[in-house]
């Protein structure tokens, strides 16, 4: 059985914490191991921070996150109106908070499956990552 939840928030740093809090809530609805939860929080923070970071110059942008909760996996998709992970052609502005491209490698490292793409028909991008859950001792 798979359940879907969707969170949207303005592309601003102060809202990134909400992407983690949904996971805290899901861990109440279904058993998720503490390390699994930690990894998922890290991954969703990376993805949503990335969206927010690239939306700085677009006032009014929105980040959309879809959480897919299965019996033994969680898949998360993060959609935004910015230029995504794969378009880091230009150097970040001096003084900007740069994570040196580490975000994506962190997601790769903590999840079992990762895919990136462009939102169809727009300038936005999406990332989907999947982590198996239930692998930790109860």
């Amino acid at each position, binding site marked *: 059985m798979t359940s879907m939840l969707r969170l949207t928030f303005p592309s601003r*740093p*102060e809202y*990134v*914490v909400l992407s*983690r809090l949904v996971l805290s809530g899901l861990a109440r609805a279904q058993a998720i191991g503490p*390390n699994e939860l*930690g990894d998922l*929080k*890290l991954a969703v*923070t*990376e993805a949503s*921070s990335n969206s*927010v*970071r690239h939306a700085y110059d677009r006032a009014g942008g929105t980040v959309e996150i879809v959480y897919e909760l299965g019996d033994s996996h969680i898949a998360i998709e993060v959609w935004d109106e910015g230029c995504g992970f794969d378009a880091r052609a230009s150097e970040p502005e001096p003084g900007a*908070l*740069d*994570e*040196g491209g*580490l*975000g994506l*490698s*962190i997601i790769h*490292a*903590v999840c079992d499956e990762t895919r990136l793409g462009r939102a169809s028909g727009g300038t936005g991008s999406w990332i989907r990552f999947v982590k198996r859950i239930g692998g930790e001792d109860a």
Partner: protein
Amino acid sequence: MNFSVTTERDGDLVVITLVGEVDLYTAPDLKQELVRVVDEGAQRVLVDMSETTFIDSTTLGVLVSGLKQLRPLGGQLVLVITDSKIRRVFEITGLDRVFPIHGTRAEALRSLPASAAG
């Protein structure tokens, strides 16, 4: 947001204590503090993360830029990490080989003798 950066200074030695979550929203406070202490002549910087509950790549970016600032000046940046989840973020990214990581503040301080700064 409840996140705090506390700075203690003793000559060219600076200890920065991070309490709470460091993410895109709070990392600017850390960045600002690091830039300030280096500008003010800190040579030995200890970032104590034993009360830090969450970090992400933004945090790592800030620490790396601090290190880049210090190195040409002959300075050092060491970390205190007790939580395995925090340590994991360094390990995933290979930055555990870039930053000296200690389990206690006392141990970290011993790794920063005053003579090292000249």
